[in-house]
C-alpha cells in the first residue's frame, strides 16, 4: 500500500483514522492503526494488510490521492451577487487619530512599515454618507446589516457618528440595523450613555488585563497608564445605566509573554468586569514578520483554564469560577466540534475553509473611502485593496483574495487540514502588492495543530458516553 490520504489519531481508549477525502473519523483496530502508520512512513511493505484495512479500501476509504483537482471557492461564480445584494457589515474608520499610544498597536510609529501610522486624518460626512449609501445599495437581500465605528479612537468623532446613526436609521427603516463601536472607552461621558443605549450602539472596550500588564503597553499619548481611566469609565457606565453596562464587551489583546493567571485575574477580581463578555486575541505581530512567542508556563496555565472551562461546559464546575477569557473560545470550540462531525467531504473543485467573502462580512472603509476586506488587514499594502467608494468593488481582486489558496494549490490539495484551514489572504500579505505563497506557508503548522486539537476534542466528547458513562451520569446529576 502507498501512502493513504489520512491522518491518524489515538486516545487512551481507541485508535482512529481521519479519512481526509471523506472528512470522516473512523475508529479502527490497533493493528490497522500501526499498519497505516507504517504506510504513512513508507514502510508498509513489511507487514500483511489487515482485513479491516482491506474492507475500508473496498468501501472507498483510504484512497492515496486527494480528490481535489482544482482550488476554487464555491461562491467564486456568485461573487457579484453576494457583494451586490448581500453585504452584511460596514466598518467605518472615522478617524486615524487616537488618544492612546499603545506600544503593540499595529498603527504605532515604531512597529512596522507595512501598516499606516497614527495620523490626524478623519472621515468627513460626504465620505461617511457615501459609504452608508454603498452598504444600502449592496444589501437588498440581507435581512440585517451592521455599521461599525472604528478608529483610531472613534469617540474622537462623535458628531460624525451621530450624523451617520441618524442618516442610517432613516435609510434602513424597515430593515434590522445594528451599530457597534470598538473604543478604548476613556472618552465616554455620562451624557453619551443614554444616546448610545437609545440607538443600540454596542461597545467593545479594549483592556488587556490587570493594571500592571495593561499599563505596560496601553498608555496615553503623554505616556501614562490607562487602566484606571478605563475602569473609572466602566464604573461610570454601570452607575448611569446598569442594564446598558451589562451589554458591554471587553476586547483583550493578550501577550503570551505575560503570566496567564495574572492576565486572567483582573476578570475575576474586578467588580466592573463581572459577567461581561470577553473576546481575547493574541497580540498581532504578523506585519512585523514575527509571531508572538509564549512561555511553557503560559501554555500550561492556558490549557489548564481551558480544561476547567470544558468541565464547566459539561456542568461539572460552576461557571463563575471559570476564566471569562476561556468561555467564548470553549463555546466556539464546542460548536465547531459539531461542525467537525457534519462538515462535507472534499470535492474535485473545492477550496480550503478559511477566507470569509472579502467585503461581504465586514467591509472596511478607511477615512478616505478605500475599501478593504476587514479592519485587520494592512491599509497601506496594495494586496488587500478591494476597491473604493469612488470606483466600487474590484471583483477580480476580491476573487483573488477569496481564492488565496490557489497560490499554495499543490500543498492544499494534499493537506489533511483542508476542511479546517483558517488562513485568509491577510496571512499571505507581505506588503509587496501580491499574495505570497512562502509567507502563507509559515502559518500552516498553526492550522494543523489547531485542527488536531479540534479533532481530539471531538473524539473526547464522542468517547465520554462510551468509556466514561458512569462519570457522565454524575455530570447529569444522576448519581449525585
Amino acid at each position: 500500500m502507498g501512502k493513504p490520504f489520512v491522518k491518524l489519531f489515538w486516545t487512551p481508549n481507541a485508535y482512529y483514522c481521519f479519512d481526509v477525502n471523506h472528512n470522516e473519523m473512523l475508529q479502527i483496530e490497533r493493528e490497522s492503526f500501526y499498519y497505516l502508520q507504517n504506510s504513512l512512513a513508507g514502510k508498509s511493505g513489511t507487514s500483511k494488510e489487515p482485513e479491516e484495512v482491506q474492507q475500508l479500501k473496498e468501501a472507498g476509504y483510504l484512497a492515496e490521492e486527494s480528490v481535489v483537482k482544482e482550488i476554487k471557492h464555491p461562491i467564486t461564480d456568485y461573487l457579484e451577487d453576494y457583494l451586490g445584494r448581500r453585504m452584511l457589515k460596514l466598518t467605518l474608520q472615522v478617524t486615524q487619530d487616537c488618544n492612546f499610544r499603545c506600544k503593540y498597536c499595529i498603527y504605532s510609529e515604531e512597529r512596522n512599515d507595512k501598516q499606516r501610522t497614527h495620523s490626524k486624518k478623519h472621515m468627513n460626512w460626504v465620505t461617511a454618507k457615501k459609504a452608508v449609501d454603498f452598504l444600502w445599495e449592496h444589501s437588498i437581500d440581507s435581512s440585517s446589516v451592521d455599521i461599525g465605528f472604528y478608529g483610531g479612537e472613534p469617540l474622537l468623532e462623535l458628531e460624525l457618528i451621530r450624523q451617520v446613526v441618524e442618516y442610517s436609521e432613516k435609510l434602513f427603516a424597515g430593515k434590522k440595523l445594528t451599530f457597534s463601536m470598538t473604543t478604548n472607552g476613556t472618552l465616554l461621558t455620562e451624557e453619551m450613555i443614554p444616546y448610545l443605549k437609545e440607538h443600540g450602539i454596542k461597545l467593545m472596550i479594549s483592556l488587556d488585563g490587570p493594571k500592571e500588564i495593561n499599563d505596560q503597553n496601553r498608555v496615553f499619548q503623554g505616556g501614562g497608564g490607562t487602566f484606571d481611566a478605563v475602569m473609572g469609565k466602566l464604573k461610570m457606565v454601570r452607575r448611569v445605566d446598569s442594564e446598558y453596562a451589562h451589554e458591554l464587551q471587553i476586547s483583550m489583546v493578550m501577550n503570551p509573554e505575560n503570566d496567564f493567571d495574572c492576565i486572567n485575574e483582573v476578570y475575576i477580581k474586578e467588580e466592573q468586569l463581572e459577567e461581561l463578555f470577553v473576546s481575547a486575541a493574541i497580540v498581532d505581530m504578523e506585519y512585523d514578520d514575527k509571531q508572538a512567542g509564549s512561555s511553557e508556563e503560559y501554555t500550561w496555565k492556558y490549557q489548564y483554564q481551558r480544561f476547567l472551562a470544558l468541565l464547566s461546559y459539561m456542568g461539572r464546575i460552576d461557571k463563575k469560577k471559570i476564566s471569562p477569557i476561556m468561555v467564548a473560545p470553549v463555546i466556539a470550540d464546542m460548536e465547531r466540534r459539531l461542525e467537525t462531525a457534519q462538515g462535507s467531504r472534499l470535492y474535485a473543485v473545492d477550496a480550503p475553509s478559511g477566507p470569509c467573502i472579502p467585503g461581504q462580512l465586514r467591509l472596511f472603509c478607511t477615512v478616505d473611502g478605500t475599501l478593504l476586506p476587514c479592519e485587520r488587514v494592512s491599509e497601506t499594502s496594495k494586496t488587500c485593496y478591494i476597491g473604493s467608494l469612488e470606483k466600487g468593488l474590484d471583483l477580480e481582486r476580491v476573487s483573488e483574495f477569496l481564492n488565496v489558496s490557489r497560490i499554495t494549490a499543490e500543498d492544499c490539495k494534499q493537506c489533511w487540514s483542508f476542511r479546517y484551514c483558517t488562513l485568509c489572504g491577510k496571512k499571505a500579505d507581505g506588503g509587496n502588492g501580491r499574495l505570497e505563497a512562502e509567507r502563507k506557508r509559515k502559518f500552516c503548522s498553526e492550522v494543523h495543530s489547531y485542527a488536531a486539537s479540534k479533532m481530539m476534542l471531538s473524539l473526547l466528547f464522542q468517547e465520554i458516553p462510551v468509556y466514561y458513562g458512569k462519570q457522565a451520569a454524575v455530570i447529569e446529576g444522576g448519581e449525585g
Partner: protein
Amino acid sequence: MKKKAILYPFCEEVLPAVRVFDGLQDCYEISGLVAPSGFGCVGMDAGYSCNHPEIGREVLGELPSEEDWDTLLLFEPRQQTEELYLEKYLEEAVSRRKEVVFLCTEENGIPEKIKKTVVACPKQVRVKACLSLPEEEGWQPQVHEPEIPVVLVGGLLQEADCGAVFTALAERFHRDGKRVAAFSGHPVGGLFGFYSLEHIWRNSELTEDDKVRKINLYINGMAEKSGAEIILLEAPTALMKYDDKALNGFGIQSYMLCQAAPPDYLIGCVPFDLADARMVSALSEDFSCRFGCGLCAVHVSNILLDFADSQQKQKIETLRANMKFVREKIEKEKESSEIPMFDVIGEGIEGLYERINGYA
C-alpha cells in the same frame, strides 16, 4: 372602472401578486408600489427585489400625489419582523380621505391600530381576509379524498419562487376559463379569491390529526361550494428539511397537507445550484414515498442559500443570483432530466402549464 391602488409595503414576497394582479381581479389596478427605504428597492424596478427581469414598475419611497390613486392596499408580509410603518401610511391615507383595505389571511391577528381605525372609519377602512366558510354551512362531515385534480406547488426552500409559480398557475387556469379553488397563506391572496388554511394551521387547540381532518374538510367544502374543477395548493412550508441547519420545519406541514389532499401533480421549486437531473430525480423518488406523488415538473429558482450566514444565524438566509445561472443550469440539465425543468420567471408559465395539461 377599476380603482387606482397603491400597494404597501412592496417587497419580494408580493412581487408574484403584482405580476398577475390584473389577471386575477377586476376591482383595482396598481398605480404605485411603495416600500420602506430599508427594503433596498426604492427607486428600482420592482423585479430587482428578486433579481428578476424588470416588470416596468418603479418602487416608490412615499405615497404619490393624491390624484394618482384611490385606494391604499396594506398588508403585513409573512417574513417581516421589523417596524413596517403601516400606521404612518394608514393615517396618511385616512387624512387624505382615501379608501384603505387591509389584506390578511384571517381576521384574527389584525394589528390593534388597524382594528381601531376600521371601527372609527368603517366607510373608509376595511379588512379583506382570504375567503373562509363557517363549518356548518358547506362542509361534508366525512373525510374523503378530493374528487377533482389537486396541484401542489412546493419548494426545497419556501423562497424558491413557490408564490410566483402558484399565482402564475392560478392566473393561467383562470385565463383558460377553469374554475380553481386556490389555497395559499399569502395575505394578498384574499384579493384574488384565494382561500387560506392559516386559521387551521394556527389553531393551537387542534391536534395534528384534527388539523389534517379539518384541512381535508375545508378544502373539499370550498372546492364543492365554488364548483371548482381543480384544487391548487401552495405548500405552507418547504417540502423537506434542507440540511441540518436549515430545518424548514422538517416539511411536516407539507406532509400533513398531502395527507389531507393527496396531490396528483407536484410542482417542485428548486434552487438552481441543486437543480441537477440526478438530484431532481432522487427528490422525486423521495417525494413519491413522502407525499404519495413524485415530481411532475420543476421550476428552477435563482435563490441561493447563504450557507455561512445561515449557519451563523441558525436560520435560513438567502440571496438572489443572476438569472443567467438559472438559464445555464436548465440548458445543461434539460436533456438528461426525466423531469422537465422550467424557468417560470424568465420564460413564463406556458411550458409548465402545458406539462400539467399533458401529464398523465
